[in-house]
C-alpha cells in the first residue's frame, strides 16, 4: 500500500477493509496535523497568514472518523477545528493554504479567510463565524435531502460552547420534530475559548441534552478515530433509516490555545500533559500495530510524505497571486447576462 491514502471527495461511498480504513484515517490525521502545525507554528509566526488561526490539534480523530463515513449524497457542515473534513471532502491542502494567505487560488479567491470555505459541488457548506448558525442550516439540508428522495444525511459539527446558542437549540429541535436525517457531531474539547464547560452548561455532558429532543445521544472517545468512525456509522444508519437525528458527543481536548495568539494560561497545568498521552495519531498507530494492519517502519515514510505534501502545498500557495481588487464588487448578487 502506498503511504498516501487520499481518497477524493466521497470516501463513504466506497468499501474497503479495516486495514485500509486505518491507513486512511492515519493519513488524514497526519495531514491535518502537519498542515495546521505549519499554519500555526510557522506561517502565522512568519506573518504569512493574514488573519486569525484556529486549529484542531489533538482533535483530528473527530473530523477524520466522521467525514470518512460521508458519501456523495451526504452534506457536511464542518466547524472551525475540523480541517480534515475539508481535505477528505476534496479541497486540497494547497488551496487551503492559499486561502489562509489571502490568495486568489483559495477556494474563496481571497474573499474569506481560514476555514471559512465550502463548495456545494462537494456538498460542503461553509461555516460562518456565528457559532451554531450552521445547525439549523444542517436541518434544512437534511430536509432537502429527504424532499429530493435521497438517502443522504447532514453532518452538523459544533463545539461544546456552541450548544449554548439559541440557534443550536432551534436547529436541533426542528430536526428532531421533523425526524430529519442529521448526525450532530459535538467536539467537546472542554473549553470554549477560555470558558470551561462548567461555566457553559450546568449538565455534565452535552449528551445530557439528547432527551430534550428525544434524540439518541452517545458519548464517544473523541481521541479514538476507530471509535468515532464506528459511532458515526451507527449514527448515520439511524438517520438514514428515517429515525431522526442522532447526537455524537466526542470527548476530546483542545491541545492549543483558542487561537494562535492565545497561550491558554487559564488551562490548569497538567491537562495538556494528561491529554497529550491520549494523542489520537499515536493511538491510531498503536492500534494498527496491535492489529497487524501496519508495521512500525511504515509510519516514518508516511510522515515524510505528508511533510512533503505540505511543503509542496506551501510552495504552490505562496506562488498564488493576491486577488485583483477589480473583483471586489463581483458576486454580491448572481451575475445576470
Amino acid at each position, binding site marked *: 500500500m502506498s503511504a498516501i491514502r487520499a481518497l477524493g471527495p466521497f470516501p463513504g461511498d466506497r468499501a474497503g477493509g479495516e486495514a485500509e480504513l486505518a491507513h486512511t484515517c492515519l493519513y488524514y490525521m497526519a495531514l491535518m496535523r502537519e498542515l495546521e502545525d505549519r499554519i500555526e507554528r510557522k506561517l502565522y509566526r512568519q506573518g504569512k497568514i493574514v488573519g486569525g488561526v484556529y486549529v484542531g490539534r489533538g482533535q483530528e480523530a473527530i473530523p477524520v472518523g466522521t467525514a470518512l463515513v460521508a458519501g456523495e449524497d451526504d452534506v457536511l457542515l464542518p466547524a472551525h477545528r475540523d480541517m480534515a473534513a475539508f481535505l477528505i471532502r476534496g479541497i486540497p491542502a494547497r488551496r487551503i493554504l492559499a486561502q489562509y494567505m489571502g490568495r486568489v487560488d483559495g477556494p*474563496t479567491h481571497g474573499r*474569506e479567510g481560514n476555514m471559512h470555505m*465550502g463548495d456545494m459541488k462537494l456538498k460542503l*457548506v461553509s461555516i460562518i463565524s456565528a457559532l451554531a448558525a450552521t445547525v*439549523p*442550516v444542517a436541518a434544512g439540508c437534511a430536509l*432537502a435531502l429527504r424532499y429530493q428522495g435521497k438517502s443522504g444525511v447532514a453532518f452538523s459539527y459544533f463545539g461544546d460552547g456552541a450548544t449554548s446558542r*439559541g440557534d443550536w437549540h*432551534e436547529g436541533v429541535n*426542528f430536526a428532531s420534530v421533523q425526524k430529519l436525517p442529521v448526525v450532530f457531531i459535538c467536539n467537546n474539547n472542554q473549553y470554549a475559548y477560555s470558558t470551561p464547560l462548567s461555566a457553559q452548561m450546568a449538565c455534565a455532558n452535552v449528551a445530557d441534552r439528547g432527551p430534550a429532543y428525544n434524540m439518541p445521544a452517545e458519548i464517544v472517545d473523541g481521541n479514538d478515530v476507530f471509535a468515532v468512525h464506528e459511532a458515526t456509522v451507527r449514527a448515520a444508519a439511524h438517520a438514514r433509516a428515517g429515525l431522526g437525528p442522532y447526537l455524537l458527543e466526542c470527548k476530546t481536548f483542545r491541545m492549543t490555545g483558542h487561537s494562535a495568539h492565545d497561550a491558554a494560561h487559564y488551562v490548569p497545568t497538567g491537562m495538556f500533559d494528561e491529554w497529550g498521552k491520549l494523542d489520537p495519531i499515536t493511538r491510531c498507530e498503536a492500534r494498527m500495530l496491535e492489529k497487524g494492519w501496519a508495521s512500525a517502519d511504515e509510519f516514518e515514510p508516511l510522515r515524510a510524505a505528508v511533510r512533503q505534501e505540505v511543503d509542496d502545498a506551501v510552495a504552490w500557495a505562496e506562488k498564488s497571486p493576491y486577488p485583483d481588487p477589480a473583483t471586489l464588487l463581483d458576486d454580491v448578487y448572481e451575475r445576470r447576462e
Partner: protein
Amino acid sequence: MSTTYLEAIRQGLWEEMERDPNVFLLGEDIGVYGGAFKVTAGFFEHFGEKRVVDTPISEAAIIGASIGAGLMGLRPVAEMQFADFISCGFDQIVNFAAKCRYRWGASVPMVVRAPSGGGIHGGPYHSQNPEMWFVRTPGLKVVAPATAYDAKGLIKSAIRDNDPVIYFEHKGLYRRIKEDLPAGDYTVPIGQAKVVREGRDLSIITYGAMVWVALDAADTLAEEGASVEVVDLRTLLPLDRETVCASVKKTAKALLLHEDTRTGGMAGELAASISESVFEYLDAPILRVTAPDTPVPYSPPLEDAFLPNAQKVIEKARWLVRY
C-alpha cells in the same frame, strides 16, 4: 374578476408551486391552519405536508433551514407570522444568507415573506416596517409591493431569483385593495421602480402602503393645480436610482414618503442618491414625510398621529410646489 392584494400573493405562491416542484413553504401555522392571515389557506390540502411545512416557533430555524434547503437546490418560501419577528432569525439572514454568494460562491435562493406595516391597531410588535435592517445589508434583495399586480409579479420573481429575497407584504393592504389581474403567468422584475402617476411639479418617491397615500394626495393636489409625479420603488434593494433620479430631474422637487420611522429610514438613502446625482436639477429642499421616531403606538388616536397620511403629504407638497 377583481383580485385582492392577499389573493394575489396567494395566487403567485400557488402558481409557482404548481410550476416548480422545488418550491415549498415553511413557517408557523401555515399548514393545517392556513397561516395567521390565511395567505396559505388550502395549500396544505392541495400540496401536502411535504411542501407545506408547519414548523415550531423558531424563526432562526425557519430561516436557517430555508438557507440549507436553498443551498441544496430547493426554493423555500418562509413565512414570518409578523415581520416584527424577523428579528428573531436576524443573524441567519444578514450574516448567513446575505453573504454566501460573495463569500464562497453559493447560491441561496429563498424568500422570506414578512407581513409588515401598521394601521391595524397591532401595537409595537405587530405593526413595524423593518425594511431598513435589510436594505443596509449587501447580498439581500428587498421588495415591497404596493399593488395586487406587483404583489403577484414580485412574489414570482422573488421565488425564481437565485439570491435571498425579503418580501414585505403590507398587512393593511391585504384585503383593502383589489384590481383585475392578467390571466396568464407574468412577473415583475426585481430592481425596477415604476412611475405610477406622471406629473411635472413634484416627485413623491415612496413604496408599500404609502403609494396609496401619495396617490390620494396627488389627486387633491391636482385639484389645486399641482401636477405630482408618484414613483413606487417596488424594490428597495437593489434600488432603482435611475428611475428615482430621472423623475426628480424632470420635476426638480422631491418629497420622500415612507411609513417606517424617520431616522435611518429609506428616505435617507433616497435623499443621498438624489443629492449626489441630480443636485443641479433640484429647485427645492428634499423633504420627508415619515412616521416619527417612536415605537408604533396602540391606541387609535396615537397611531393615527403616528402614521403618515394624505394630509401630512399635502402640506409638505404644497410648500414644495410653492417654493
